[in-house]
C-alpha cells in the first residue's frame, strides 16, 4: 500500500503534534493545593501593626494584658510581646534592657544587665532614652514557616503567622530562624509559641489585647488592603520603619520614630 505512512513519517509527524500540543500546555502552571487555597481566599484583609514609639511610656500594660489573654503563664520568663528600654549616654554608651519582658513596667531607673547586675545612669549623662514595644512581625516572608519541618506553623491568608499546637514537634528550628526573638517554647504545651495579633480576637472584629490595654495608643492594628483604614493610611503616608530589613523577611509591624540603635 503506497499511501501507508512510513515509520519515519509517523515519528516525524507525531513529534510535530506533540511539540505543538506541549507549547500551549507549558503555559499552564502546576498549582500546589496551598496556592489554590490562597487564590480562592478573599484577600480583602492583610493585617498590619503600627507602633508609635513616641507614645510608649513603658508601663507594660500591653505585656500584662497579652499574658492574661493568651494564657502564657504570668511568671514565665518569656512573652509574646515585650517592651525594650534604650538608654544612650553622652559618652556614646548604649544600654538596653527588658526586665521580665517589661511585664511590670519600667519602675526602676537602673538598667537591668542580667548577670552583670544593675546599672545606674545619672540623668544628666543621658543623651536620649526611649521605649520600643516588640511583637511578632508577621513577616510576609516568614523564615519560621520556611524552616518548620512538619508544616505546623503557617501563614494564614490574611498574613498572620500561626502555630498548630497539635502538630508542632518542638524541634525549635523556628525559634532559631526568627531574627526577632519573637518565638519561644510554651512552658505548658512544649510547642512553639508566638504572637498571633490575638487572632481569636481580630477575626471577630475585636482589637488585640495589647492594643486595647495600651493607655496611650502606641499600638494600633489595621488592614493594609483597606485604603480607608487609618493604620493603613498612616503606614502609607507617614515615615515608618521596620525592624531588621536586611533579613528580607518583609515585616508587617511598622514603627514610627525608630532609632538607629534599636536592635
Amino acid at each position: 500500500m503506497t499511501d501507508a505512512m512510513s515509520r519515519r513519517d509517523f515519528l516525524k509527524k507525531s513529534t510535530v503534534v506533540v511539540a505543538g500540543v506541549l507549547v500551549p500546555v507549558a503555559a499552564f502552571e502546576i498549582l500546589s493545593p496551598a496556592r489554590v487555597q490562597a487564590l480562592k481566599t478573599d484577600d480583602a484583609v492583610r493585617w498590619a501593626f503600627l507602633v508609635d514609639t513616641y507614645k510608649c511610656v513603658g508601663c507594660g500594660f500591653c505585656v500584662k494584658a497579652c499574658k492574661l489573654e493568651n494564657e502564657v503563664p504570668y511568671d514565665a520568663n518569656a512573652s509574646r510581646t515585650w517592651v525594650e528600654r534604650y538608654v544612650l549616654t553622652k559618652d556614646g554608651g548604649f544600654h538596653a534592657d527588658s526586665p521580665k519582658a517589661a511585664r511590670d513596667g519600667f519602675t526602676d531607673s537602673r538598667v537591668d544587665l542580667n548577670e552583670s547586675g544593675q546599672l545606674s545612669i545619672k540623668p544628666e549623662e543621658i543623651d536620649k532614652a526611649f521605649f520600643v514595644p516588640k511583637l511578632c512581625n508577621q513577616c510576609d516572608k516568614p523564615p519560621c514557616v520556611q524552616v518548620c519541618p512538619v508544616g505546623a506553623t503557617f501563614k494564614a491568608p490574611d498574613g498572620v503567622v500561626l502555630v498548630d499546637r497539635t502538630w508542632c514537634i518542638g524541634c525549635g528550628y523556628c525559634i532559631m530562624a526568627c531574627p526577632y526573638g519573637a518565638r519561644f517554647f510554651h512552658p505548658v504545651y512544649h510547642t512553639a509559641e508566638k504572637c498571633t495579633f490575638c487572632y481569636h480576637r481580630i477575626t471577630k472584629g475585636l482589637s488585640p489585647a495589647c492594643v486595647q490595654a495600651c493607655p496611650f495608643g502606641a499600638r494600633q492594628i489595621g488592614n493594609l488592603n483597606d485604603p480607608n483604614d487609618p493604620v493603613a493610611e498612616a503606614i502609607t503616608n507617614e515615615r515608618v520603619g521596620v525592624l531588621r530589613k536586611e533579613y528580607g523577611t518583609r515585616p508587617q509591624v511598622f514603627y514610627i520614630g525608630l532609632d538607629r540603635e534599636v536592635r
Partner: protein
Amino acid sequence: MIPGELWTLKDLFVLPNEYIYWSIQIVMYPFMTGLVAGSFVLSSLYHVFGIKQLKGIASFALVLCFALLPAAMLPLLMHLQNPLRGINVMMTPHFTSAIAAFGVVFSTYFAIVASELWFLYRGHFVEQSVSLKKRPHKTLIEWLFYLIFTALTLGSFDITEPARHKDEKAIRVLATAGIPVALFLHGYAGFIFGSVKANALWMTPLMPVIFIMSAVVSGIALCMLAYIVTMEIRKLLVFLARREQPQTHVVERREEIKSVEISVIKMTSRYLLFFLVFAISLELLDLIFRGYTGIASWDVLSTVLFGKDFVKVFVLQYGLGMFVPLILLLIPGLTIRRTIVGVTLVLFGVFMMRWNVVIGGQAFSLTLAGYMEYVLPVIPHSVETFREGVAGALTVLAFPFVLFYFYAKIFPVFGSSESR
C-alpha cells in the same frame, strides 16, 4: 519554666524570649551523623575505588556505620519537646525545611547501607545457615542463630561463583550510590545551620562543606580507634589462649595480627590526614573571611571567639583537636600508641567543633549586645536535665557500641578466622 531557661545564663542585653534552646543533643546530632557519613566513606574507598590496603577496615567500617545510623537519629528524638510526634516529619514533611529532608535522606541511606551489608555478608549467612542446619543436636542458642541466619539469607542460598560475582557488582553499585547520599546526609546537617540567616555565626554557605569534611575526618578516626581496640582485644585473647593451652593450634599469632594492624592503620591515617588538612583549611578560611569582611555582627562574634570562647575554639578545637593530631600523625614511624592518642584527639576536636558551632552560635544575643552562657546539666535530677545533659549525651554515645556488640555476633566483622 521555659524549656531552655534552666541552663541559660544571660548577660547584658538579651531579648526576653532568648534561651539556649539547642543544647548538647544538637551537638551530638551532627557529631553522630558525621561518624556515620565518615565511616561509610571509608568503607567505600575500598569497595568503589578498590584501595586494597583498606580491605581489612572496610567491612568493619560498614558494620560500624550501620550501628551508628540509629544513633544519629536518637539525639534529635531526645531533643524534641514532643518526642512522640517525631514521626510527623515523615507524615507531613514540609520540604522548604532542611530538617524535613531528614526522613527521606535517612531512610534512603539506611536502605543503602543495609542492602550493601546484605550483599557483603550474604555468603556468610548462607554458610552459617547450612552448617547449623546440618548440626544434629542443636542447643537453644544454635537454634536461635540458625533461625536468624536463615531469615537473613532471604531465601537466597546460591553462593556459586557467578552469584558471588553478582554480589560484588551490587556492592560496588551500592557503595558508589551511597557516597553522594552519605555526603548529602551530612551536608544537609550543615545546611540546617548554615541556612539560618538570623544567626550570625551559622550563616555561611561554607557550613555544609565544613561539616562534610569534619564528618569524614571524625568517621575515619572512629573507625581507626574501634579497629585498634578490637585488634588489641584479639591479641589479648590469643595471648590468654596460648597461656592456658600452649600446645593448641591457635589460628593466629600475635605478631601476625600486629603487622596487619599497623599496616592498615598506616594506610588509613594517610586518608585521615588528607581530610584533616581540608577541614582545617576550610574552617580557617571561614574565620579569616569573617574577620576580613568584618560585617556588623563581627564585633560581637569576635568577642565570643577571642574572648569568652577562646579556650574552647582555639585551644581545644584548633590546637588540641586539629594541629596536635596533625603533627602526631605526620611524624614518621607511626606507632599504634601514637595513633590512639592522635585519633582520640581528632574525635575530641570534631566534637568541640560541633560544640562551638551549636552552642557558640547561641552564645550571643540577636541584639548583638548581649551574651548567653550554657550551663551543661551534669547530674540528671529531672527528665529534662537527663535528656539535655551529660547523661543523655553519654547514652547517645554508648548506644552504637552496644548495637555493634550484637552486630558483631551476626556479621563476621574481623574476617573468617574469627571463631564465634
